[in-house]
């Protein structure tokens, strides 16, 4: 299960392992790290890392902190921090992430949106500049 593609987590770091022989249907939610090698349908949310193996098939809306993808996700994907797409990765849906790394061969069929690092703060200077430009 833990091949070279997803060495980022060992089983002891992982709260949930959805192995190749298992299917999860419904709204799966976790606070810990999740590894998927099997099938998931519905939605998948975690506040930690999601590692998707090469044989995994996910048909779900995905919301995670970090994504390490070698398999396939059909559905929209929202990543709070970093998305790492290996050469075998396939996303058939929209991807939203703060940081993106893509290996040659990876496929994204959908809209890819990069989330801004931090929204520009409305400081006093900014407000004054805005006012002065309007008055002109």
């Amino acid at each position: 299960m833990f091949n070279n593609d997803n060495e980022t987590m060992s089983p002891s770091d992982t709260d949930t392992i959805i192995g190749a022989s298992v299917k999860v249907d419904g709204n799966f939610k976790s606070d810990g790290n999740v590894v998927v090698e099997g099938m998931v349908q519905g939605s998948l949310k975690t506040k930690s890392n999601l590692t998707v193996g090469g044989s995994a098939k996910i048909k779900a809306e995905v919301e995670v902190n970090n994504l390490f993808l070698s398999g396939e996700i059909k559905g929209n994907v929202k990543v709070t921090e970093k998305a790492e797409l290996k050469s075998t990765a396939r996303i058939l849906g929209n991807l939203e992430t703060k940081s993106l790394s893509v290996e040659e061969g990876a496929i994204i069929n959908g809209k890819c949106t990069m989330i801004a690092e931090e929204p520009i703060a409305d400081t006093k200077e900014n407000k004054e500049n805005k006012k002065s430009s309007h008055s002109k």
Partner: protein
Amino acid sequence: MHYYIYDQFLTDKKFEPIINRIEARLTDLGINGRTEKLTILKSFSEAVKDVAKKEASTIIAVGNDSTVSKIISLLPNLNITLGIIPIGPENEIAKMLGIPENEFACDVLSARIIEKIDLGKANNYFFISHLHLPASPDLYLDSGTYKISSLTQDSRINICNFEFDKENPQICNPKDGLLEVIFSPGKKQKGFFTSLKKQYTNDSVFKFKKLKVKCNTDSLKALADGHTAIKTPISVEVVPKKLKIIVGKNRMF
């Protein structure tokens, strides 16, 4: 006051020398107490009820894993601390608790380190180690928001509370307030407890507090702690810190 409940299999004469050594050591340490020796005519539940009436604070299970499991299912609603003197084969629970076999266990009882550990509850039955589910394509687990099912017909499914694996020391800790569902594809069960000792690399692991075991067709039988059959549907939950148990310094959690 300590009450010692001796399992029925200890009536075999080959255990006599061990029991003599144990009783001598208990006397030396000053922790000897009343004994209940189980026979065909006296069951675990009768023995535990008798002990509870006498307002005992500690019951010592003298026997093996099976002895411990049977007593544990009777204890949770009583304010009684459990101790173990492991004798004979199949003493995985005692090993995990850091309790050595035979008369050496007496020193652990004397030191009296007490831990409160979780128990699993399957319908109305309490289990300490695991609930084994039969391999069936019709079986699935329902958490309320999602369902887990096996894609293969030969998956072995265990719901574990207390299991130690050297490769994955964090899995199945009896103090984490969680149970673990472990799907093991294509592995046949070899025996009581020993079957769980293996790597988890091909397995699926889910941690949870409460779920239901359901079956699409006829009712199936699950086996709690290797000896008690429970029919599906089964409501399984963890009951945190339910059991007070005497442990050794070398416990694995």
